[in-house]
């Protein structure tokens, strides 16, 4: 038998909280009652702890819950059309094969009670699980052998994970089943992937997954997320965090020139911005590290996760750009010393997920042209740039001479061949301009 105690999640009672079902009788208010469980949302989060007042929340929810019921019915139809037996009460574990139509459905939101299964399925979780039967249980059996540093770090954060969620903190004074599950998942993952171990923010990602699936699946989702979406983001040196910020800055330059120009103006972004990430860029590190948990309202985060797990890492950048796009009208007229505050507070106001997803995915919008290949190339460029910079840099002042900078930029261009290799990004032509400038300057130096 497994050493693993009963998992807290996946219990039928938990699903009852967030079922998208038509009201028994049309016109009754039963929907809202199931939501407002002593001022909690359908996942057990305290609404008062969210970022908007209860009245505004209820008004929005009244509309949005109708949308959810409509979407659920459409999903049921889609499933039947593809030969899956499904009705409002079923819990499918398999989903139709990938298609443009399915992608559209995912972007419009997966029914909440199907989310756990759907995320796991779209990430190819079932295959990983069947190839590695027993692996999680084996890790559980030896999880106490984890090193002291990681054990202590995990323990410090367990009770600080969603303290406003009833499943994590039931105010009984006793440790909730969910905290037990979270402890095991985080310890097992730290054992499984010593390069990462435990990094703060994994508690939030694992915690949110546990609301939708059992701990073994949560464990495999963590594995897949780090292979697919957050490569190197949680490692010891957090290099991936800086790389992602660098890529995002390059994306701003290409897709949100107005925002970029304001940033450049205020934050004196110099030519080394890929190495010394400017303060405004650093505000968004937690967006990546915690996959938007705590940054956006809960329902909005979940809709984003639908897209992330169906698609690939470009979605993180598209969503980030989308948030800035929505923020742009305010961003350009906000004084410099208020910008940090705006970047932090604005996302919390995006209560309606459709506002954000429309900006990210509507064909007319330039952000929707951002392709995965572009992100990959861009990422590789930033990685190489940073690595070379580190090799070249002087220990005394961390700055390059113009000649060294020139060499670095030329190598960057050579590596990626033709200047137009990245259709979307104009950074190559900009590099050429920089090179010309540097060449003149370094000739001057000599």
């Amino acid at each position, binding site marked *: 038998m497994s050493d693993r105690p009963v998992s807290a999640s996946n219990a039928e009672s938990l699903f009852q909280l967030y079922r998208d079902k038509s009201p028994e009788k049309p016109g009754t208010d039963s929907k809202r009652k199931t939501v407002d469980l002593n001022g909690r949302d359908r996942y057990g989060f305290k609404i008062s702890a969210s970022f908007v007042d209860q009245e505004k929340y209820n008004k929005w929810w009244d509309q949005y819950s109708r949308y959810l019921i409509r979407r659920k019915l459409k999903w049921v139809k889609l499933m039947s059309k593809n030969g899956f037996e499904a009705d409002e009460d079923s819990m499918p574990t398999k989903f139709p094969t990938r298609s443009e139509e399915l992608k559209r459905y995912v972007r419009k939101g997966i029914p909440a009670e199907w989310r756990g299964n759907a995320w796991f399925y779209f990430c190819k979780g079932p295959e990983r699980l069947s190839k590695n039967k027993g692996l999680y249980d084996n890790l559980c059996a030896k999880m106490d052998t984890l090193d002291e*540093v990681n054990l202590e770090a995990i323990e410090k954060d367990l009770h*600080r994970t969603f303290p406003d969620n009833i499943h994590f903190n039931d105010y009984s004074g006793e440790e909730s089943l969910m905290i037990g599950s979270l402890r095991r998942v985080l310890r097992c993952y730290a054992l499984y992937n010593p390069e990462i171990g435990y990094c703060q923010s994994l508690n939030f990602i694992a915690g949110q997954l546990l609301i939708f699936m059992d701990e073994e699946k949560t464990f495999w989702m963590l594995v897949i997320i780090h292979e697919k979406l957050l490569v190197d983001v949680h490692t010891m040196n957090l290099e991936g965090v800086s790389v992602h910020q660098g890529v995002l800055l390059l994306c701003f330059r290409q897709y949100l020139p107005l925002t970029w120009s304001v940033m450049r103006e205020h934050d004196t972004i110099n030519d080394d911005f890929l190495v010394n990430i400017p*303060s405004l860029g650093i*505000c968004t*590190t937690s967006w990546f590290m915690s996959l938007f948990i705590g940054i956006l309202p809960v329902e909005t985060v979940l809709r984003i996760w639908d897209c992330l797990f169906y698609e690939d890492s470009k979605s993180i950048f598209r969503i980030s750009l989308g948030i800035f796009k929505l923020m742009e009208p305010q961003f350009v007229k906000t004084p410099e*010393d208020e910008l940090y*505050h705006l970047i932090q507070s604005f996302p919390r106001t995006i209560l309606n997920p459709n506002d954000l997803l429309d900006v990210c995915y509507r064909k007319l919008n330039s952000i929707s042209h951002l392709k995965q290949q572009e992100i990959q190339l861009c990422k590789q460029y930033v990685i190489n740039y940073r690595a070379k910079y580190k090799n070249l840099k002087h220990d005394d002042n961390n700055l390059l001479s113009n000649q060294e900078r020139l060499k670095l930029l030329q190598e960057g261009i050579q590596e990626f061949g033709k200047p137009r290799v990245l259709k979307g990004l104009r950074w190559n032509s900009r590099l050429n301009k920089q090179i010309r400038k540097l060449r003149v300057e370094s000739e001057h130096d000599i």
Partner: protein
Amino acid sequence: MSSNKQITAVKLVLLGEAAVGKSSLVLRFVSNDFQENKEPTIGAAFLTQRCTIGDKTIKYEIWDTAGQERFQSLAPMYYRNAQAALVVYDVTKPKSFIKARHWVNELHEQASKNIIIALCGNKYDIVESEDNDASTENEDDDSRKRKVSVQEGQTLADDEGLLFFETSAKTGFNVNEVFTTIGKHIPEATSSENAAGQERVDLTNRLDSSSTDSTCQC
């Protein structure tokens, strides 16, 4: 409001081991609130608070950072150009005091020369009763919750030229005092305009030095 009142913007960064109460100190100072089990800060959080000291008003621009060891590599982004720093430890956790020492050293080496550093031994509420209770004085160290003595904190502060406080974000003990005392030590001249100008000058200097300062390249 009197129109000729000068508002001084002060960039302040909080550093210290995970779960010592950095965010809680800020929450107490900014909102006069306390949350049990405050969620860990990821990356960093930015908050502002105004504080009036005598006839000057200070606007604190606070960068509250993540405490886990690996986030240390991001810290320079937050403390560069900071005029003040709060280095926080937990009076019940000796390791957090060692970490505080490291932060003080790093700030002395890497941060701007005139940075004002305040050392805060937080969670004073946990040890308050045993401090006041004479009968526990002779008990051995293991049974006492306090693991870092006032003297140790004071000595470090004296040696390194720091302000020193023991605080409790939970009860609010000494929290405002930390910020007002820092405010008193901020020189008058650094108004918000001057501070911004200063930054710009610094950056150009840094850029120029790479090409013109030949002494550091040989």
